[in-house]
């Protein structure tokens, strides 16, 4: 820590007893669901971050003027995955407490940690939640719910919500509470989890489930396996090996193709 950092440190006498309570962290957890509400192209989640952290700031800085200065500083640029933002919130809450009680952490250090954690956690969150867990939850819910279709129509959506949000809520809870206690040590902890390897297994399971569902659908297709035999490999080829052909393009191509074949009397 250089001289400037030392001069910037908190921790004057009388502040040692200030501590964040569990109820404050619970409030942060609930408020963090609204982190995207003010998302803007200028500073992205900055207002949402401040709103989420507010119960902690209110506890640690009872003096309104001091709290105003700290809050103003937290209005800087911030953007990460909405679920992984809870890890940053937990860590920043822990560091704010350290800053107030012992002065062991400077304000600049708090903001550096916040800034440097946001990017990698955004990438991690996008990979885990958007790229792997969301499609896997959908395909798993459809595969399991298939047997119940006809009896309970809302079973598949409910199962999808349950599977996805199981991990989502756990991560949000873990982020705030463990982030608070582990502080920057949360980073090596996340590295040790070897998320990339787990995600690859999720993809592999997804492939297995999708192949099973696809084969069942093809066998049930009114026009028989011959049409599916053309339809599926051609679509797979375009979707895997071309970048410009998307699912939307294929939707239009196949519909127009079926209509033309029907008009021509081929099918």
């Amino acid at each position, binding site marked *: 820590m250089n001289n400037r950092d030392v001069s910037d440190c908190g921790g004057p006498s009388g502040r040692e007893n200030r501590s964040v309570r569990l109820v404050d962290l619970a409030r942060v957890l609930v408020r963090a*669901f*609204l982190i995207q*509400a*003010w998302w*803007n*192209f200028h*500073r992205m989640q*900055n*207002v949402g971050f*401040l709103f989420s952290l*507010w119960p902690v700031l209110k506890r640690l800085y009872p003096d309104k003027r001091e*709290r*105003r200065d700290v*809050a*103003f500083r937290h*209005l800087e640029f911030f953007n990460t995955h*909405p679920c992984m933002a809870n890890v940053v919130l937990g860590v920043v809450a822990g560091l704010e407490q350290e800053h107030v009680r012992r002065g062991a952490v400077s304000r600049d250090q708090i903001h550096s940690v916040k800034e440097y954690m946001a990017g990698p956690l955004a990438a991690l969150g*996008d990979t885990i*939640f*958007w*790229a792997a867990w*969301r*499609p896997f939850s*959908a*395909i798993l819910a459809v595969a399991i719910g298939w047997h119940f*279709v006809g009896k309970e*129509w*809302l079973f*598949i*959506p409910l199962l*999808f*919500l349950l599977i*996805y949000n199981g991990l*989502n809520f756990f991560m949000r809870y873990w982020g705030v509470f463990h982030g608070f206690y582990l502080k920057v040590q949360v980073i090596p902890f996340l590295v040790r989890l070897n998320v990339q390897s787990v995600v690859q297994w999720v993809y*592999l399971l*997804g*492939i297995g489930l*999708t192949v099973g*569902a*696809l084969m069942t*659908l*093809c066998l049930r*297709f*009114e*026009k028989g396996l011959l*049409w599916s035999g053309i*339809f*599926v490999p051609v*679509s*797979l080829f375009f*979707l*895997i090996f071309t970048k410009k052909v998307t*699912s939307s393009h294929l*939707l239009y191509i*196949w*519909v127009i193709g*079926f*209509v033309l074949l*029907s*008009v021509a009397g081929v099918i």
Partner: protein
Amino acid sequence: MMSTFFLGGWLKLSLIYAVLSLDQCAWGQGLVVSRPLVVAPLMGWLLGNPALGLLVGVIAELLWVRVIPVGEWPMDTAIIGGLAIVWSLCSIKPGLESLVISLMLSVPVGILSRYGDIWVRRQNRWFNYWVSKNLVAGRESILTKALGVSLLIWFVKNFVFYFVMVIVGTALVNVALSHCPATVLRGLKLAGLAIPILAFTAVLAYFLKREKNLFSWTIPFLRQ
């Protein structure tokens, strides 16, 4: 099904959609209640045909699996699912034919909806100035007020857009259905049977593209 054409019913559906869609722009963003797999079956259930709602939900969820809500994502798949089912069930001939026409028409609306989101997010920059100015002045309640205003803006935007699109789209689907000859309708019905296969194929392609170790696991000599 004609009984569902009344304005009050569409207003109710728009209100439900506006609340659910807040998930993707304002609260949560990760609770996935705004995903088509949730929105479409719910709309179908409210309109009395949960089976078709589920089919639309599964198609929209899986077909656009590559559309990840990161950065400037290309389209709003929730509104695609939410509109396609309502247009289809409120049409003069609910079924696979109307469903295929509705899906095709709802894709451009999904893209248009994203432009609306981007516009609102551009306006959100005023929250920065508003919150900063009031915090400096010592008015801490500004955060709660700003939250209310933000949620209201998103809600109104989603509600109005969905409601207008339900009216316009239903009329368009009805015009298309009434002008289609029988052979075209037959082709549309067959396409309706094939689209779920396309949706699952899209998911398979997505997983295959992302699974990097598949070939090295399945073909042992490639591991060398």
